[in-house]
């Protein structure tokens, strides 16, 4: 797995707080057995009207095409546990999201697929958003090692849960291999622990 230490690219601001996963990916796009093509479902109902014509949405603006960093508000990704939400963002070409705060399941899901989510304090975030709005060509850099976001000659300290930062910079954001190392221990727990419909699991536990 690739170590993710820095993300650099052009950015787009998706304004608003409490943007829930139903808005990020409307439920009808969950009707599929793979994540393929999800990038196009990203914010669909906010980006297109009923007849499929594009609305005025930041992601539709020509100067924002190819952006790889999304700047959002507070409580981003609340609601359902659908991994379709971070998957859609990743598949639409984004590598990092900078916001004021993230819903927990969303944050965990995003980190596990190597989509970087970091927070800035509200004041810095406001400055960043304004700068991005004014500089469509400008690049933003998220530096997980230095714990900084840099843009237009400015530097803002970023925050991210240490376990997630560690997992990203060390290339262990997908934990499966590490989880599998403990299979022997896990099998012992499985044998000892009670389970649904299992006989004998509670024996001697009390």
């Amino acid at each position: 797995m690739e170590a993710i230490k820095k993300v650099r690219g052009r950015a787009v601001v998706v304004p608003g707080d409490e943007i829930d996963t139903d808005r990020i990916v409307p439920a009808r796009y969950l009707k599929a057995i793979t994540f393929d093509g999800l990038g196009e479902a990203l914010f669909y109902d906010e980006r297109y009207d009923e007849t499929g014509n594009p609305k005025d949405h930041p992601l539709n603006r020509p100067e924002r095409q190819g952006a790889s960093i999304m700047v959002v508000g507070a409580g981003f990704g609340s609601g359902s546990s659908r991994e379709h939400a971070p998957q859609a963002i990743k598949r639409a070409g984004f590598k990092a999201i900078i916001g004021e705060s993230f819903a927990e399941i969303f944050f965990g899901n995003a980190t596990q697929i190597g989509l970087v989510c970091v927070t800035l304090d509200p004041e810095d975030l406001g400055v960043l958003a304004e700068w991005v709005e004014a500089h469509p060509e400008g690049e933003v850099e998220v530096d997980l090692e230095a714990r900084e976001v840099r843009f237009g000659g400015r530097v803002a300290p970023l925050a991210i849960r240490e376990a997630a930062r560690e997992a990203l910079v060390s290339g262990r954001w997908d934990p499966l291999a590490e989880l599998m190392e403990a299979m022997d221990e896990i099998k012992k727990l499985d044998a000892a622990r009670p389970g649904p419909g299992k006989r004998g699991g509670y024996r001697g536990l009390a």
Partner: protein
Amino acid sequence: MAGKTLYEKVWDAHEVRRLASGQSQLFIDLHLIHEVTSPQAFGMLRELGLEVAMPHRTFATVDHIVPTDARDEPFADPLAQAMIEELRKNTREHGIELFDVGSGKQGIVHVVGPEQGLTQPGFTIVCGDSHTSTHGAFGAIAFGIGTTQVRDVLATQTVAMPRLKVRRINVNGELKPGVSAKDVILHIIRTLGVKGGQGYAYEYGGAVIDGMTMEERMTVCNMSIEGGARIGYVNPDETTFAFLKGRPYAPVEDEWEEAVAHWRGLASDPDAEYDDVVEIDGSQIAPYVTWGINPGQAISVEESVPDPAGMPAEEAALVTEALEYMKLRPGQPIKGQKIDVAFVGSCTNGRLSDLREAARVVQAAGGRVAAGVRALVVPGSEQVARQAEAEGLDQIFRDAGFEWRYAGCSMCLAMNPDKLVADEISISSSNRNFKGRQGSPQGRTLLASPAMVAAAALAGEVVDVREVLGVKV
């Protein structure tokens, strides 16, 4: 030394080890899957050439996409048919038990787990579904996970998870007549905010919670996630044990006593330390209705929709956005708001007691569903449907002009044919009022208890169910 919370006890008993990142590798006793968030996980397993490590700890059901008006296959929607078939294939291939349509056990995953006795105190329970917190009602540590984590559980029966803080929420005193578990949780979310629970597991207690039935506790725990808490639980007690006894997958006779003794010991110690404690006065809670686009935007039925004028800019912006989307007038009373659709169902309020409550209101109010209103009752599981039919509830609903449906998630998120049309406004016993949640990008949702939904269905507008029931306000 201070005592421990149930959360700590259960976590410690399941922590395989600490990972390099500092997260816990947590053993999972029960893994529930459904058709929407599992197929990609099985796909990932296949790509990696991995097997399901412990198929006896995973159970599957179909709920989100099943049509609830007719269940003949193939379904009218070929994508829905493909999803159910994929689940059948995956469960068959890996030896996982599936509660298929018509098996008598099918239903919404968070209804069938407890109903079958799969959900037990002290278990760690995960599902690729955020309302997994429901199972915490039994004193389990239950939380929603993403699809990549579903893969992890299938492959290793463990997940990587950070340990949370614990907030104790005491709901004290006594509820007034006509006030339900749904109103309690809407009140809690309004009080603590939709982000208030981030980083916390919620432990619910106090006289009101102690006095609740298991179904009511499930309603409360179900919506923990709407308050930002990934986990919500209630300490197991006699009510819990009585509910579980004799359920198909619960411990059997000869070890029942041992199981109960173990469960008793799991409850939080009286001297346990919490990271935070919140006191709520249960007697102050009235029937609730949401007016906005997140579940924290809730008011009692006696209140008026907020007016953004004079609010701090940030708050005003949120309120204005919600009111514009909902097409409500600032300051209007919520009582009297017209509705187009009434939906009784979902993992929050689609259990037998919810249907009984709704039927009781229908009988008390008399008459029929108001002209122009579409009203649906969707039982949470095949078993709930069977029991309701045995009691004649379906007839009460049908006679009053409600549609009586087969079990599934239905209009809670409208991945099946049950959807709002255009900007219809519904009153719904489900858990989310997000923009577009009920199937139309302009659809509007008012969340309320099943009793309030039933009352509104008959009146054609939001009413105070306490007036219908003749209980003193």
